[in-house]
């Protein structure tokens, strides 16, 4: 187990969209080198929290600190993946990654090919990403997120609509990355998939973290929605 000092700190973060509060004063610290899974119903604030960590959503109040810096300053150490693919449909996988590699100042093709292979896809595939199956698209999106070898991964519903086989492979890949010292955050509805790999499960409800456990089975059953 790689125990490191807290790399992600969320201090009383409030995020409001008009009258709706997506995050209501979330405070938490997350250790490095761990695999954290965020669970909760729709509307609980999971995606908003992840976007706040990525620097895509600016908190109305409170602060997020990643490795002691703002998310924007720490962007080289962050890898983000969301439910939309964040890829260009008309280009092939390798072309997409080549472009994003240029944004991170990564020269050459080698790294791009390496990550495409790491997620279990063929770098030579010339098919445009728009024609991929959902599983392939999620995997390529993950490849884009890990392209620059970030210390912290933020993944929003990476397994949605993905076949079980691909999903298990992705989980194994992520577990391997955690073992190598990366900090991983996954928002998902499929808790069972991550049972063996994850270090910690967080439950969110109505914009707050209501529970944190190491073991899925110790969490009491969800309160029924009112």
């Amino acid at each position, binding site marked *: 187990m790689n125990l490191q000092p807290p790399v992600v700190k969320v201090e009383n973060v*409030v995020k*409001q*969209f*008009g*009258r*709706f*509060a*997506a995050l*209501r*004063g979330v405070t938490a610290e997350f250790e490095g080198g761990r695999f954290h899974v965020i669970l909760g*119903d*729709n*509307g*609980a*604030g*999971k*995606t*908003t929290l992840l*976007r706040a960590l990525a620097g895509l*959503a*600016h908190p*109305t109040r409170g602060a997020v600190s990643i490795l002691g810096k703002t998310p924007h300053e720490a962007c080289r150490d962050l890898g983000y993946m969301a439910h939309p693919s964040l890829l260009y449909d008309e280009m092939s996988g390798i072309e997409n990654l080549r472009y994003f590699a240029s944004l991170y100042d990564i020269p050459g093709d080698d790294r791009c090919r390496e990550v495409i292979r790491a997620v279990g896809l063929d770098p030579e595939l010339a098919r445009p990403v728009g024609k991929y199956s959902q599983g392939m698209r999620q995997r390529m999106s993950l490849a884009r997120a890990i392209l620059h070898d970030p210390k912290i991964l933020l993944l929003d519903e990476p397994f949605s609509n993905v076949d079980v086989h691909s999903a298990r492979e992705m989980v194994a890949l992520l577990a391997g990355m955690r073992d190598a010292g990366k900090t991983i955050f996954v928002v998902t509805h499929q808790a069972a998939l991550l049972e063996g790999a994850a270090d910690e499960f967080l439950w969110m*409800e*109505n914009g707050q973290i209501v529970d944190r456990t190491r073991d899925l089975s110790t969490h009491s059953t969800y309160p029924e*929605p*009112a």
Partner: protein
Amino acid sequence: MKKAFPILAGLTAIFLAYAFYQAMFVAPTDFAQGDVYRIIYYHVPSAWTAFLLFFINFLASVQYLANAKPSWRRAVNWVVVLLGIVGFIAPFVPQVRAQLPTGMYPSSVATTALILVGLYFLIARFFPEQNVDLLAVTTAEVGVVFCTIVLITGPIWARPVWGIWWAPGDIRLTSTLVLWLIYVSYLVLRRFSDSAQTQKLAAVLAVFGALDVPLVYFSIWFFRTQHPQPVIGGGGSMDPRMLHTLLISWMAFLCFAYLICWSRFQLERLRREVEEAEALESLLETPSSSAQISKARVPLSRGPQ
């Protein structure tokens, strides 16, 4: 101010009535235009008021953007001071003095420069943080109203006197039209924007508009030198009694504008306070998620999750 409001409103009404009396009865009839010219006492003060309000909006927008970081704040402050110094000294420099229109004294230009700089720092002093955005929204809205008055009274004046409703080369009227368009688009942006940073985007637009205005002025000015056009506003010097009435009218308009701005400012401030209170309330309670979602205003790029 709240207590003083009815008194000030009453005084302003009296002042406006006095200005009306002056404009309609006391001011002498124009030799060339007859009584029609009296619309000038509404046309010109509206224009000056609108320009003043838009200028305040520009200052407020710049401050709003500069407030984002302390270093930017300091930098902008220094730039303003520098501009003030240049504006104060420049009119006295012989080359610049020669460029000034006849009748405009260097000292008045210099004083104006100082007043404008002073205005900037007054706004900074009395409208901290969020209030500066309230000032921006208020001056934009009230400015558009006065600008509309200018654009309506302009053609009404032009038609009987010069036989035309509009002359594209009329530099003042056309510049006013462009200014009106820019600020209407500003208000539309504020209304249509879903972003959490609407205020910043609007401030950016105001800066763009301010950069545009001198360019508009010069482009029409040169166009006119190549294509001589009738000048609707009339130039040259004015009978001192007319000028006197004009200034009275302007003062009355300024009082009126101040009252409206104050009301609008308070209205907007209260509206925002209510919104914040409601948001705070929703923060503290824990209603069922479905009820919250149905009440939410879902932003464009990302729904709440």
